[in-house]
Each structure stands twice: as C-alpha cells, then as structure tokens.
C-alpha cells in the first residue's frame, strides 16, 4: 500500500512528519555524512540569535537515568554567519528548513526574523521561548503567558511562512500558552522543550553543570511530553510538533496518536544519528501494515476518553 506521508502547514508542504529538533542536528551540515537529511520532513536549526553567543562555560552536559541534562546556553554562530555560511548548504537540500530563533528581547526576535525573511531557502520559523539555560529570555518569557503572546503577535506580521512557537513544559497548564499563541496568530506549537533539572556530584559536592540547573531531555521525559501534547491537543485546535524522548518509530507514533501532527527527534540524534530516518520509515510501515493510507489519519486517533483522565478536571 502506498502511504501518504506528507502534510501541509500554512502554504508549505513537508514530505513527512519526522523532523530533527533544534540544537540536536547543528545547522544540518555537520552530520549529513551519517544521515541523509533529504529523507526527513524537515530540519530545525540550532537556535539563532542576532549576535553569536559563546554559550555557558563547561560543564554543559550530565547524563541522568535514561536522559541527559544540558546547559549549552544557546551557543550559536549568530544569524549573520548563519546566512553567510550555513544557508547556502541548506538551500541545496530538498528537505524543509525551519530556522529556530532565540533572543533576549522581543525586539531581537523581530530583528532576526526580519533579516532571515530577506533570504531564500527558509520554509518556516520556530520560536524558542523556552530555553531553560539562559537568564534573559528563555524561561522568563516562556513561563509568562503575556510575554509569549506578545512575542507571537509581534512576529506574526513579519512573515507569511509557518510560525511555530516552541513552548516550555515547566508550567502548570501548557494549554493556556498554546491557546494564547494560537490567538496571536501562530500556525503551530512545539511541545516540549526541556524540563528544568539538576544533578549533583556527591564527591565534590558541586552541581554537575556550571549553571547548576539545566534542561532534561531524552527517553526519561517521554511520558511527560506525551501527557503535555495530549493536554494541548484536547484543549486547543492547533497543529502540534511532538517532541521528547523519541527514539523509535513506536515512540513517534505514540505522539501522533495523542495528537501531534508531526514529531521532532532530539537527543537520539546524539546516540544514533540514523534513527530519525528509520523513524520516518517505521511510521510509514506501521500505517501500511495497519491499512492506513495517510499517516495524517493517525493524528489524534487514540481511542481514549479524556474524561477518564485527571486532565479533565484539572484543565
């Protein structure tokens, strides 16, 4: 059976529903020898800011049970170098390019996006209002529903391309934020960025990360991410990129079933660079062997009564 894997967001068609997540695939040209990006639905770039950022001092990584903490601190080459050095390569790919933007002021978000708009080869934007590893911007935006709405409202008029807001799970009701950005004109939300976490070296009695706390990712967070996507899907009618601990096609399908219209593979790229392509193939295979001719029909098709869940009363 031929299975339709593509889908549309705004005016853009994506060839399948598996993307690589921001910060876990560089700018696309670092690991294209180990995985063929042209087999992906899209690449989300490392977060870009106006100026290059050095990132946080070492130590930036700590492994935890089935997960990892990172405190990269948005180390990135800056939007100008990106345009000059990375975009030409990305333009040669036939997959879609979503540029992720991070900033420490509303104006900076606008400036970066406006500059990128003047260049070809970009198919959409993902706005990171949820990085837990920088003190300005990041969580102080992402946990404030008014700031999140304001950023979306200010960016919306600047582009006709898909505008995706990447939300933080570190809030009581993520759906409240999804609703706000939908009302402000966003085309989709990405759920979830990392969870605030911490690890301690008991030998030295110091935190394992230079910034004390960091962002938790990997298989450990998958159950939380699924519940967040389910919460948003049940409360707000907006396309969702499901993210969090995806390592296999089955994991990705779980996200589709609870309501994600596409998924992003993050930490797994570090462990198994070929995984994202295998996941895309695995989803098509699952649909095919279940007699489903369009992966889109899986989206939100979980047989579940939200009334059975605590989310019912809690939302």
């Amino acid at each position, binding site marked *: 059976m031929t299975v339709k894997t593509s889908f549309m967001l705004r005016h853009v068609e994506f060839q399948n529903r598996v993307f690589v997540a921001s*910060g*876990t*695939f*560089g700018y696309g040209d*670092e*690991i294209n*020898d*180990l995985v063929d990006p042209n087999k992906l639905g899209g690449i989300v770039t*490392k977060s870009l800011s106006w100026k*290059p950022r*050095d*990132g946080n*001092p*070492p*130590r*930036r*990584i*700590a*492994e935890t*049970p*089935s*997960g*990892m903490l*990172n405190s*990269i601190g948005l*180390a990135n080459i800056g939007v100008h170098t990106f345009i000059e050095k990375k975009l030409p390569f990305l333009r040669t790919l036939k997959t879609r390019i979503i540029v992720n933007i991070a900033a420490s002021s509303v104006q900076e978000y606008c400036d970066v996006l406006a500059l990128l708009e003047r260049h070809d080869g970009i198919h959409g934007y993902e706005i990171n209002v949820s990085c837990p590893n920088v003190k300005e911007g990041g969580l102080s935006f992402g946990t404030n529903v008014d700031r999140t709405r304001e950023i979306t409202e200010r960016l919306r008029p600047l582009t006709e391309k898909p505008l995706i807001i990447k939300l933080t799970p570190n809030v009581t009701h993520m759906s409240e934020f999804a609703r706000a950005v939908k009302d402000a004109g966003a085309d989709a939300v990405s759920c979830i960025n990392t969870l605030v976490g911490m690890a301690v070296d008991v030998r030295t009695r110091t935190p394992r990360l230079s910034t004390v706390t960091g962002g938790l990712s*990997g*298989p*450990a967070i998958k159950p939380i991410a699924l519940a967040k996507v389910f919460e948003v899907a049940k409360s707000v009618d907006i396309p969702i990129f499901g993210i969090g601990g995806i*390592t296999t096609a089955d994991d990705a399908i779980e996200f589709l079933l609870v309501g994600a219209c596409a998924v992003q593979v993050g*930490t797994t*790229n*570090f*462990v*198994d*660079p*070929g995984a994202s392509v295998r996941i895309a193939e695995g989803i098509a295979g699952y649909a095919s062997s279940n007699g489903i001719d369009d992966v889109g029909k899986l989206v939100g098709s979980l047989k579940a009564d939200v009334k059975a869940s605590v989310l019912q009363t809690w939302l």
Partner: protein
Amino acid sequence: MKRFQTMSVVISLEEIAEGIYVLTLECPEIAKLTEPGQFVNVRMHDAHSEPLLRRPFSVSFVEGDRLELLFNVIGTGTRFLSTRRPGDAVDLLGPLGVPFHIDDTFETALLLAGGVGVAPFPMLRAALERAGKKVITLLGARSGVQIADRRLNNAYVATDDGSRGFHGSVVDLFHATVARNAILRPKIFACGPNRMLSVVAAAARTIGMDCELSLEGEMACGIGICQGCPVERSREGRKYALVCTDGPTFNSRDVVI
C-alpha cells in the same frame, strides 16, 4: 574526514593490568581510517536507554581490520564493555576528532600518560617510530599493578606509591628525565586527567617545550552537534573550542584548562 556508524565484532577482551582491559574489535571501515589520537564513540547497550549516551574511547592500537580500546572500569558503561565476549556486536561511531600532529619538525617525542591516559599511546608511538622520531615513554599510575605498558616496551614508569619505577607522579618523572638527559628538539604528547594536563601544560610553558594534549571531557554526541564539550581557548576569536571536533588533541598553548 570520513566517519562511520557501524557494528564491530568483539575479537577478545583481556585484562592487561588491574582493572584495565584491552578490547579488540573487528571493524575494517574504522580501523582503516583511524590516525593516532582519534577516538570512537561507543554505544553502551542495544535495546534500552540506560546508559543513554555513547562513551568516547581513544583508539589504542590498530592492526589490519582490528582496533583496540584500552579502558578501566569506572561506571556503568565501562562495566558493560568489560562484560563483552567474543562474537558480541558493539556499535561504534568513528573515527572522530583531530589526530595528534606528528609531522612537525621535532626529533624526540616525550609521551606522558597519567593512568589510562596511556590509551592512545601504543598507536601514537608506532606512528612516531615509523616517522623516524625518537620516543621516550613515561607512564604514571597510582600503583605498579595499574601500569598498562602493553605495546610500550621500555617505558619509564612512575607510581604514586613507589611500588614500581620512580616514586612520584609522571610529571615529577618528566622533570627528572629532562634534567638528567639532553633531549633533542623535543615535543610533549600528554594524555591523562585534566588536573595532570594542566600541570604538564604549565611545565611545558616554563621550559619552553612544544606540547600537545589529549583532553578528556563529558561528551554527548562526539560529532560536533550538541555543543556539549567546550574547552576555553586562549587565543582571540571564539571563546570556546569543542573537544570532540576541534580536539581532543590541542596544542597546550591554545587552550585554558
């Protein structure tokens, strides 16, 4: 530089010193391409997610299609490796990183290893000797039983407890060696805990020797995409270099450790 994610096959596992193992893997693609100082990122499981991340190990030696890893058991990952048996499959990503620079005009290579920092030296020494360099190998460990001098004949040994060779650290032994011998156009190659490397770097600066370090550090990806392995640069420009792709070998002048 060409890299592979590929399955290798365990040929043998041998305990060559107390708690220190050499794992020999058959892996033609990677064996063929590896140069001294490069490493492989090794997956620590197959089906499940614990431990999640790959672990970096220097390629210790290459012979035909086979490569050797030298490691000591410290945590879950290395314990996993120490239970591999002939015929088991091990997922490798490599070769990774920038090799040692052995084409400079030095004549004598001084190899300084602290503990399992010795790992990359068998391959490095063989390459240096092929290139016609004179090699002096200095190995340090807490105790004599932990000296892993396989494939490193005539190495000078230093032990913290004095149970074998020189009584003191490998850096002390280095100073003694330099003081006692006239060493022609030397270059240091050092590998070991970062504490040791920063002492070596300082010594090299003081006596004006060229010095290359192989750094350790936590890695998530090993291939330059996570930005998780910064080391501070001492030159203008970017504040940090990445240990995995700009290193793990660095000239001691170029980094602050």
